[in-house]
């Protein structure tokens, strides 16, 4: 560790003392985290996971900077960037006006010239103001320039519904960005996912759309010692089998992974063993893992919060029909957000998004079981 610090100190003279201090602070903070959790399982909220990932990547690479609304002095609208301004200063933690098209464009432009911006959208609903830059300026540049101009930018922020925020603040953009070649689209669920995928995204030379979830920020997950290491990275494009099973495959991402796991527990009592796949990556989509699982279980339910038409589930279904048709024992079932703008009223909002019982019901259908809650004796 010290050797690396000395090397960095020599190589980057102007930043040497800053880098040194950052590395030492990082060592101290990681050490304190480990001391704090030394007894028993280490747990970390998704918020802290994202914050620590940003912190470590900014310390490791001076070209990484954060830009967005309220990321600096306000400590982040959802506190994801808390403490970063104090540590890295206003040149590397940049508060912007409420002008998404402008600052997304500025971010992409800075990436053209070698910086590694992490652009925060307060929610991805606001990314629609900037979508031209994400797609036309970032995603397509490497291709159009025959490899001269790559765009090492990360667009991150909360995606999908929260709680009672209404039609204009609840949309999931997974399918929209997932359809664009040139983009990478990541969807973390747990704290390990958040850390590993964000670090991978920042290090990746291509534009990454990093879709978080507001309701997961406060959730705690156990993290391995390996995940706490500053060099921890998860591979982009690889899904994770969260729970092994043999009767049915359930694919999900982000908050729906938690719902799918709960559904799997309920199904277990019914004698249905569900395999839950945490996609982690929408683009590239891990078709291999999904197909291998379906070839094992022969049944598939896809789960997502976004609108159903042209959604993630539609793509997964097509992939399975193309590659593993002979293995399917039942039609693929899709559970998705309702095909309506998000209502505000609590009872309607509940109907507008997948609930655990929807996943259980679809799983039972796919196993040709009746949808009765009371399990037969």
């Amino acid at each position, binding site marked *: 560790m010290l050797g690396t610090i000395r090397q960095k100190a020599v190589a980057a003279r102007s930043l040497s003392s800053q880098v040194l201090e950052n590395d030492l602070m990082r060592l101290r903070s990681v050490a304190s985290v480990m001391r704090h959790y030394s007894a028993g399982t280490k747990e970390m909220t998704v918020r802290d996971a994202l914050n620590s990932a940003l912190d470590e990547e900014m310390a490791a690479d001076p070209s990484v900077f954060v830009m967005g609304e309220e990321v600096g*002095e306000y400590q982040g609208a959802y506190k994801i960037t808390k403490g970063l301004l104090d540590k890295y200063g206003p040149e590397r933690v940049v*508060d912007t006006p409420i*002008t998404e098209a402008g600052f997304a464009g500025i971010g992409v432009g800075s990436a053209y010239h070698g910086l590694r911006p992490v652009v925060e959208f307060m929610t991805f609903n606001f990314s629609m103001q900037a979508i031209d830059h994400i797609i036309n300026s970032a995603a397509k540049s490497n291709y159009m320039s025959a490899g001269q101009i790559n765009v090492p930018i990360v667009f991150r922020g909360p995606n999908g519904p929260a*709680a009672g925020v209404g039609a204009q603040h609840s949309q999931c953009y997974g399918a929209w960005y997932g359809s664009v070649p040139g983009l990478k689209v990541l969807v973390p669920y747990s704290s390990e996912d958040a850390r590993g995928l964000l670090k991978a995204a920042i290090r990746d030379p291509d534009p990454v759309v990093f879709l978080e979830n507001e309701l997961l920020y406060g959730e705690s997950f156990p993290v391995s010692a390996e995940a706490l290491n500053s060099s921890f990275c998860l591979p982009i494009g690889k899904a994770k089998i969260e729970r092994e099973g043999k009767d049915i495959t359930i694919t999900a991402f982000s908050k729906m992974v938690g719902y799918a796991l709960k559904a799997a527990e309920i199904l277990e009592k019914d004698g249905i063993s569900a395999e839950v796949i945490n996609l982690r990556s929408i683009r590239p989509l891990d078709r291999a893992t999904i197909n291998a699982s379906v070839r094992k279980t022969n049944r598939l339910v896809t789960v997502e919060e976004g609108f159903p038409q042209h959604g993630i589930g539609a793509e997964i279904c097509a992939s399975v029909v193309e590659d593993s048709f002979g293995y399917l024992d039942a039609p693929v079932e899709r*559970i998705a957000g*309702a095909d309506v703008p998000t209502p505000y009223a*609590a009872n*309607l909002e509940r109907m507008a998004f997948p609930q655990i019982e929807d996943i259980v*019901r679809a799983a039972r259908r796919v196993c040709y079981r009746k949808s009765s809650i009371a399990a037969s004796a």
Partner: protein
Amino acid sequence: MSLVRRSSDLLKPFTTAASTTSFLNSRRHFSTDDTTTITVETSVPFTGHNCEPPSRSVDTTPTELMKFFTDMALMRRMEIAADSLYKSKLIRGFCHLYDGQEAVCIGMEAAITKKDCIITAYRDHCIYLGRGGNLLQSFAELMGRQDGCSNGKGGSMHFYKKDACFFGGHGIVGAQVPLGCGLAFAQKYRKEDHVTFAMYGDGAANQGQLFEALNMAALWDLPAILVCENNHYGMGTAEWRAAKSPAYYKRGDYVPGLKVDGMDAFAVKQACKFAKEHALKNGPIILEMDTYRYHGHSMSDPGSTYRTRDEISGVRQERDPIERIRKLVLAHDLATEQQLKDIEKLARKEVDEAIAKAKESPMPAESELFTNVYRKGFGVESFGADRKELRATLP
């Protein structure tokens, strides 16, 4: 139940009650007095950009002065009650409160008609009330009940009242400005003699789409009035940290502008009257209302991490819009302190009654999930989360 009728109802008890006040003996009957002219001076003169500012002498009547007080007191009460409802989790999601800014919407309404259009962002509860909206529908909407002005489907940020030309209630910062210019486009297209007030904040003032729409409004002489409610903070970011030039009334460059004390309802009224006349003849104009919000950006924002409590209480003491009207009412002998307190008490009672009634309103029927997706659905199918379990035909 419109606000206009309400205020004259409120004033009736004072003229007929044989109560403890010596009101009947020593006060003029102000309740129907809209003929006496009172001239009020605005707090500060207007500052013009590329235009000759209007006079700071504003004519009003006792009726109007009392109405300003009564209406603002009701709005203030409504917002404070919403704060409590949010904290008791009866209001969910986002809730952006307007207390402190009431003079902008009250002054504006005094200068215009219900055929002039208003569009604003998400800090819309009082604008809705000003347009003739109903307390019960407001609280029911906030609580997501079927008697809400959007049947519970919109929520705090999506109040509308089309029959009074109030076009919402928008969640995406800045979007309402081009939309407002579009309303003005339609007004001109149809040769109406009306204007549109497109309201936005200092945070939205830097949005590119505003300048795109303003350019077209100027090019095509649209009767669009852009009203910047400058409460000096875009969420947690002070205006000087977001704008190279926070002189928003000048930002239209070739479009004239006026800087107005937004805490002075009469200054607002004068400015809006001036702007309407201008827009009908010469196209767009920008009004910058210097105002202040007592609450944070929303109920999720304490509002004290980026500004001092001294600043907030300072504004409350020196510039509160309701206090300003109270002083004018007392100075012109239109009512006693006690009578004004009684009006405020009545406002509280009205709000409490509306909340109680709103609480009784049921949640929308489940079938409402699928209504109003389209105006004309052609019998197309729509689906719930489990498409095999819940589907509907859109009419």
